């Protein structure tokens, strides 16, 4: 396998220009929603609303002001598939459509995907959706085709402020650590890295520098694989089965009692 490659997204220099969204759509030939004729979302400057089968990059805008404006921030973050080292989607996919590439990225093979949607519910970040044109599950491929040709992914190439950086994960981690230390030295104490180490799903090959808690950006602080929930889920299922069985018995008994009661009544009537 080649060296693991990925994104480091430094949200502290994101200017919310959405060049990544457009570059992604242009390279991957993804359509605009409803041909571009859509309504204002009313959610700050975000009108693409979420990641989807046709929206593989999505810039979030978070307006965070106190009522008196004594403090105020407008956080921006370009969201994308995290290319998890332990990827829930890959684990859930029943057809083997989702693979790990030689770059340690996670890609859905479109000719194998049958649109079963297992990966959609498995992903803890809500990254994957069905592309209505193909009826298959789609998400960022980390520009697998460009990577194979030795090119930088379209979004990273288009980002004007180098908020989205592409490169070998080991190098990106170093760069991220330096940037974090610099920000801390400048007094931005809330700055933190997200997904840069193994603590989150074995590491995210698309990791972030955030300026606040992950929840502020709509990111789970402790995302889980579906398989880690299997024992608990199994226990719940067993318990459910027991309860259902008991209820069934109760129901049968009630039915029997009712029949007896009815028969008794009939008997009485006959008298």
């Amino acid at each position, binding site marked *: 396998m080649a060296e693991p490659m990925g994104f480091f997204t430094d949200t502290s*220099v994101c*200017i*919310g*220009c*959405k*060049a990544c*969204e*457009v570059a992604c*759509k*242009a390279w991957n030939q993804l*359509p*605009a*929603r*409803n*041909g*571009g*004729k*859509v*309504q*204002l979302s*009313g959610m*700050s*400057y975000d*009108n*693409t609303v979420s990641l989807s089968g046709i929206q593989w990059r999505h810039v979030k805008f978070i*307006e965070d*002001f106190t*009522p008196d*404006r004594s403090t*105020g*921030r*407008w*956080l*921006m973050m370009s969201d994308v598939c995290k290319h998890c080292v332990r990827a829930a989607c890959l684990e859930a996919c029943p057809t083997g459509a989702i693979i790990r590439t030689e770059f340690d990225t996670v890609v859905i093979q479109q000719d194998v995907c049958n649109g079963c949607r297992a990966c959609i519910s498995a992903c803890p970040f809500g990254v994957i959706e069905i592309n209505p044109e193909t009826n298959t599950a789609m998400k960022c491929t980390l520009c697998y085709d460009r990577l194979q040709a030795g090119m930088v992914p379209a979004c990273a190439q288009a980002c*004007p*402020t*180098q*908020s989205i950086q592409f490169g070998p994960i080991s190098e990106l981690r170093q760069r991220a650590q330096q*940037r974090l230390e*610099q920000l801390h030295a*400048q007094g931005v104490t809330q700055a933190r890295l997200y997904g840069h180490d193994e603590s989150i799903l074995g590491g995210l090959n698309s990791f972030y520098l955030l300026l606040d808690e992950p929840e502020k950006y709509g990111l789970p602080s402790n995302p889980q694989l579906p398989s880690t929930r299997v024992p608990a889920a199994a226990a719940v299922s067993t318990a459910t089965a027991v309860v259902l069985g008991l209820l069934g018995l109760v129901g049968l008994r009630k039915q029997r009692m009712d029949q007896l009661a009815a028969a008794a009544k009939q008997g009485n009537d006959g008298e």
Partner: protein
Amino acid sequence: MGSNMAENHPVAFRWVAEAKRRGAKVVHIDPRFTRTSALADLYVPLRSGTDIAFLGGLIRYVIENEKYFKDYVVNYTNAATIIRDDFQDTEDLEGVFSGLKEAPQGTNQKYVYDNATWQYKRVAAWDVAKAREEAKKAATFAEMIQKMVPPAAEKDPTLQHPRTVFQIVRRHFSRYTPEMVEQICGTPKELFLRVAEILAENSGPERTTMMVYAMGWTQHTYGVQNIGAAALLQLLLGNVGRPGGGILALRGHATIQGSTDVPTLHHSIHGYMAHPDARRNHDTLRDYMLTETRPTGFWANLPKFLVSYLKSMYGDAAKPENDFGYDWHPKIAGDYSFMASFHAMARGEIKGAFFFGQNPATSINGSLIRRALANLDWMVVKDNFEIETAAFWYKSPEVERGEMKPEEIKTEVFLFPSAQVAEIEGTFTNTQRWIQFHEKAADPPGDCRSDAWFTHQLALRLKKLYADSTLPRDEGFKNLTWDFDYDPGHYPTNTRIQGEPDVMKIWREINGFKTDTGELLKGFGELKDDGSTTCASWIYCGAYPEEGKFLPANRNPDPDDKPGTHLGWAFAWPANRRILYNRASADPNGNPWSERKKLVWWDATQKKWVGYDVPDFPATKAPDTPAKPGAAGMDAHDGKSPFILLPDGKGWLFVPTGLQDGPLPTHYEPVESPVPNLLYPKWQINPIAKIYEHERNQLATVGDTQYPIVLTTYRLTEHHLSGAMSRWLPWLAELQPELFVEISPELAAEKGIKNLDLVRVSSKRGSIVAKALVTPRLRPLTVNGKTVHQIGMPWHWGFMGLAVGDVVNDLTSWVADPNVMIHEAKALLVNVEKAQ
């Protein structure tokens, strides 16, 4: 300040982000909290249109706290110069300068200034009229200019004389206190003082501060003075002509710099030479030279630039005996700016119009413009799509409302499809004056053609049409050189488009060549005033110094470490110089002010100026060179005068000539303002402002209760200008699909407006509907005890294309800055209510 760089110049903002990574502080002063504010270290709100009060406050702070760069100010600015005894300041006349008089008819102004009293006090009496009479008799242009040299100006290097520029500036801004700033701008005093401290700490020998502006400063009836205030402040702090300093003008779109250089301006010809003007003393070539040439300083070379320009216009027909064809050159006779032209169109005085890359149907006072368009006999629109201007006659709101009927509109519309930028080759000039060549990527589809193709073909056809004319008035057009066809056998073979001009031939004319040998010129130093050189644009001269060597195509950046001036990347006019007036980066003795900020310095052993940039100074003029008394041109300056284009070689804190509305920036309110002018109660607005009278150009009164809210208009990253290049593209349309109005939660609560509600926004000119975007990024300000609400609207929308919406400019008015005739779209009065 006055700009939203992250949103409107995201690609250039990469360098701000980079500077931030290296520890630079970013301060954003703006009525709205924008994507630029989000990246700034400090955001400072102010009321739209009060920038001069804010900057004036900073000027006062810097002077009163002695934070100015004393050595720089004394040596490199006109601080020490003494102004005439009869000059009176706004402090003397309660808000106006001496020289105010009633405006002549037809200027759309109430008053104008006579600037005679704003001049330097001379050491000897000087009669300009008499000097001019004498000069007219001179044999050569050089001799003529020599006779126009005035006596030296009086100076007091101690800056103590009460009529020195320094003391006048000090008195002028003495009332711009932090408290006054708070009361006018609505900016909390503590925040203002923090800005002042950051600015002062970050200026001096070791450090420089850059000011970045855009339409937030220009689009006011005192737009030029906004920038003048910044220039004054930067000169006081020693931040001009030095790396990391200066004032960065962010341009409205690609190659706006190029289009003013070349130019498409109505009042200047190439290279910022004044357009021959019937209203000025420009009757003959000599009159023009006498009126326009500044006899001392670099502009003394004007005759060389102008004669070479006339040679480029009329070629061999331009001869010394016919004044190089000067009499053929068109003269302007009035205000031909955008608003003045549409004002004339509204009166039915204009018959036809060409609109290239422009969409006036969604421009200022849109309804009035669309009605004016209906007065045309014909119009040509050349654009990528059928934009609002081309469709005004059947789809405008006036037609929808039944106020105009398509069958009654006589205007014949010719819509020509246009090529996109990737489909043409040519150069772009950016705000740093870099001329950069770009190649063509693909042929345009169908009948789409470049603007160059269209203009070339039109010119060829017109030339043919006029070829047989014997009318004297057509002589100039007949003599106009137009030889841009490719040489036979040289037309490119990799295109199906025929009839394009040869762009390198156009460049040959712009760069200039020797008329006898045809040899390309290596720089404007070679220009002559005898007709032996031709050059359309002296400032671009040297970009194409020899065949096969076209510097705008250069792509050799400096290595990562140094020196960072990138002289091998493209060509920066003039003379590939990256920082203008860079002599100021060295101290009066020619040594760098500091190691950290060194750029250009005097090398005593080589006896010349050296450094990382092309020195903006005579190459071998030593710092201790004295000025030659009575000399013309550069000899009039000593070796310590970096501002070579100015007659005295000094940066002007006080501007004696060139500005219509005063030698110093002064706080006036926008033409439509919710509050009275606190500093000058007698003069609410710029007394020289242009106001174009029309029944559909009504203005709200001061504190108008019907229109109490300040509206500021702007652009978004996701769209471009009127949307002609973005609203038709699905990928961009979906990013900002509908028109909205940004409203603070406080105003929304007051008006019962919820997020996404439809609201009606009305001004004295029009009324439109938009969706509410309620956001804490906008905030009410307390202005002199009164709550002032500000709302914001992006103006990208119109009635054609994928993403449609009302025209925000239907609210704006025809009022203008008197210097450059820009409109006031950043501060106007409106009302907002929930739409029914």
